[in-house]
């Protein structure tokens, strides 16, 4: 009897476990570590990043300076760790502003269409034709070097790209019957746009923000490298690549190299994450 009853006992079906996505996990970890580094820089950095020691310039790795020192005798590890702050803050601000403005314009364009949509699209086209870096240089010429001018300029030049990508998706959503059902159901336009359209555009938005983050970081580093952004001796990776150049010829490439490496690691992490999220979204059936 017991043998007959056994199969009848309902065993809870094993929950389909998702295989861990190594790309997302590893890039996510790298990004999380970078953010932690930025937040806890004072605790993590072994030394004061601005403390120059003329007697210990361009040293190789040692117990006192794990990654060596730069041409002013400053501890490179500490400078790299403090450098995360501005190197991430700049692109983060750009992406925040550009996605915020881009999304609002995109959804309003998709919803209202008509002249508003046409004006927004034309302005976006014009801005889009303008290289961001040139835009940033113009802004610096007008407002002086620092973080603010290039961030504002690059925010403006990233907005049209994000706006266009999001508008296309918002328009697709807007024309789906579920949005018509919401409208007939009496929901206000604001509720439809935020609770329904925005929520369905969100996955795409996250992917685009992640991908653009890498580009923004490179653009901003280029601005710093050109001496138009954050000024030395502020620890920032773009600045470090630039100030380390003079030591390369003397046979001490570590400053430029390490700062460049940090840029590459960060950009690759964001791009891989963005690409992976994008392909996962394509893989799932949109229903």
């Amino acid at each position, binding site marked *: 009897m017991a043998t007959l009853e056994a199969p009848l006992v309902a065993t809870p079906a094993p929950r389909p476990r998702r295989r861990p996505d190594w790309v997302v996990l590893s890039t996510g970890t790298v990004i999380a570590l970078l953010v932690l580094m930025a937040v806890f820089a004072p605790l993590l950095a072994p030394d004061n990043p601005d403390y120059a020691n003329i007697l210990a310039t361009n040293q190789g790795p040692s117990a006192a300076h794990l990654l060596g020192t730069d041409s002013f005798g400053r501890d490179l590890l500490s400078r790299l760790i403090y450098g995360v702050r501005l190197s991430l803050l700049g692109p983060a601000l750009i992406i925040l502003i550009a996605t915020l403005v881009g999304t609002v314009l995109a959804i309003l364009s998709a919803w209202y269409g008509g002249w508003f949509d046409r004006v927004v699209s034309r302005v976006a086209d014009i801005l889009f034709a303008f290289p961001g870096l040139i835009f940033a240089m113009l802004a610096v010429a007008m407002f002086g070097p620092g973080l603010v001018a290039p961030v504002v300029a690059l925010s403006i030049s990233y907005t049209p790209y994000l706006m266009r990508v999001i508008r296309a998706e918002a328009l697709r959503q807007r024309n789906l019957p579920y949005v018509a059902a919401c409208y*007939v159901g009496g929901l206000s336009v604001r509720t439809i746009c935020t609770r329904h359209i925005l929520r369905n555009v969100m996955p795409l938005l996250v992917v685009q923000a992640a991908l653009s983050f890498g580009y923004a970081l490179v653009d901003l580093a280029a601005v710093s490298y050109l001496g138009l952004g954050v000024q030395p001796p502020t620890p920032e990776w773009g600045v470090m690549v630039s100030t380390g150049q003079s030591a390369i010829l003397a046979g001490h490439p570590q400053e430029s190299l390490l700062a460049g490496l940090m840029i590459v690691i960060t950009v690759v992490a964001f791009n891989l994450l963005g690409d992976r999220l994008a392909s996962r979204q394509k893989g799932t059936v949109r229903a």
Partner: protein
Amino acid sequence: MTDEPVLEVRELRKEYRVRTSRAEAVPAAGSALLGHAVTRRERAGVLVAVDDVSFSVSPGQSLAVVGESGSGKTTVARMVVGLERPTSGTIMVSGRERSWRHVSSRERRRRAREVQIVFQDPYSSLDPRMSVRASLDESLRLHFDWTRERRDERVAELLDQVGLDRRQANSLPKALSGGQRQRVAIARALASEPRVLICDEAVASLDVSIQAQILNLLSDIRDATGVSYLFISHDLAVVRQVSDAVLVMRRGRVIEAGPTASVLSEPSDAYTKQLLAAIPRPGWKPTLSGS
């Protein structure tokens, strides 16, 4: 007074501006069946999708609108629910005319309690990121000043009414079959307690046994709530089952109207006869070559 129509449409007309002469290239799958092209271009660049359509629906009545693809059925429905603006004509709901000037969101909310619609494609007519419960609750919160408990009760009641398991309340649409999704769409439409429910080919994309279930469901709902139907279909077999009266449309115009039984048994119009001839009858067998 009880016989005052809940929905009355008079001389409704809708023109679409179309670019170039491609207006003639519209006939879709359905019209191939009848073997003629749809050419409705009256003036250059203007396509008349709906032309002088009038009808009325009494409380609890079910009016079917039939016609080939492109005959303007959906356009009529979209105008009635306010998704499309008529070129001319009037739409009266519960004796009140629906104007297109300055429709406030408050007015739209009021109108939502009068007429609701269920669309053809159950896969795109539900928000993919919203659970069944959230969809229904959203509507209840909007239209009624109820406590959470009262709304939860009502959600359960609506699910029962459309024959869904209460355990499915927390599912996302992607976890549901086409038939189940259509039940959710019906429940959502009923949530605002409308007087008229428009079903635009609401069963056309479902397989036949599910179609029959949904049709039975709709007739049960009518018995329970007294809702009226505007039932759009190109399938006369379906129409026979659900409607009291039929309106036959062709090329945007009404070509025949009357009680279902008489229109379907003694069609006066040649076009209706053609439509009828296209229905597979019980004795009909598909012929397979080679077997």
